[in-house]
């Protein structure tokens, strides 16, 4: 039964329980310090809660208007300039953990998708529109805008360099 329970626990939950255990141990040895830590924690949660709500709404809208499967149609071989644009837009629009996209990209690679476009797609996953309110909250509009623009520009540089170094030639 314990084995089944352990199998059901995900990495995120295991991490959370581990941190809770640290708090329990801290409480046993120094309750005053624990109260201090909990006060800091509440302050942190209160500060980011409204932003999380905005993130949820934008994530919902992204899920409502974009589909994973439709992105794959435009990333095939010979996609040219459109391929770059779609790789960038697809990377930005894609959501979920990175490993979720490996099977799709692997499939597209077998169908002739260039390494440069795969690298560009993966790089642009760093530009997350639903998460921008959080970035603005912490670092301001100037930083958020500059980082987003540079990330998009460098994603193309990244794609070209990866293509060259992976020794498959500029055409892939």
């Amino acid at each position, binding site marked *: 039964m314990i084995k089944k329970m352990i199998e059901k626990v995900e990495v995120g939950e295991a991490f959370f329980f581990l941190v809770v255990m640290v708090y329990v141990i801290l409480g046993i040895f120094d309750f005053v310090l624990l109260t201090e830590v909990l006060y800091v924690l509440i302050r942190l949660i209160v500060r980011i809660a409204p932003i999380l709500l905005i993130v949820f709404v934008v994530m919902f809208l992204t899920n409502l208007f974009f589909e994973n499967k439709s992105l794959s149609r435009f990333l095939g071989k010979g996609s040219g300039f459109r391929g770059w644009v779609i790789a960038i837009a697809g990377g930005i629009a894609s959501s979920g953990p990175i490993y979720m996209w490996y099977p799709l990209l692997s499939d597209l690679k077998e169908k002739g998708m260039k390494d440069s476009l*795969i690298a560009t797609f993966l790089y642009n996953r760093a530009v997350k529109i639903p998460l921008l309110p959080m970035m603005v909250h912490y670092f301001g509009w100037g930083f958020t805008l500059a980082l987003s623009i540079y990330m998009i520009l460098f994603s193309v540089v990244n794609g070209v360099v990866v293509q060259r170094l992976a020794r498959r030639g500029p055409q892939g």
Partner: protein
Amino acid sequence: MGKKSNGNAPKQAFFNTTRAFKKSLPILIGVLMLLALADALIPKQAYRLIFSGNWFFDPLKGAVLGSISGGNPLTSYVIGGELRQEGVSMLAITAFIVSWVTVGIIQLPAEGLMLGKRFAIVRNAVSFCTSIVIAIVIVLTIGIK
């Protein structure tokens, strides 16, 4: 790009969003709990000792930290934001945020298996280097160190 025409789409989108959110919530709360713990236990001067404001070593340290970490980018913003409040340079924080998503040491074996070993190593190495370059270029652009 693939607008959903199904009448059940809003319900499905809400379900997917809730599921994605629920999955990342334990990690996010766990990180916040660790940050609160670090805030109370680690003296403020410690961050300034690790990140000294050096134009090369600060982004390098930030990039190393971001590469070995991973997960939702949201978590990297929260950590980066808190580090900023501790006085850590934007050089280190930018490299940390960029490498958090673009470099994945933990996912490297999976990426190698699915997309090719050479591709995975080259892509991660190039992404690591560009995270440092982006950090320097951003700080030069917006003028805050």
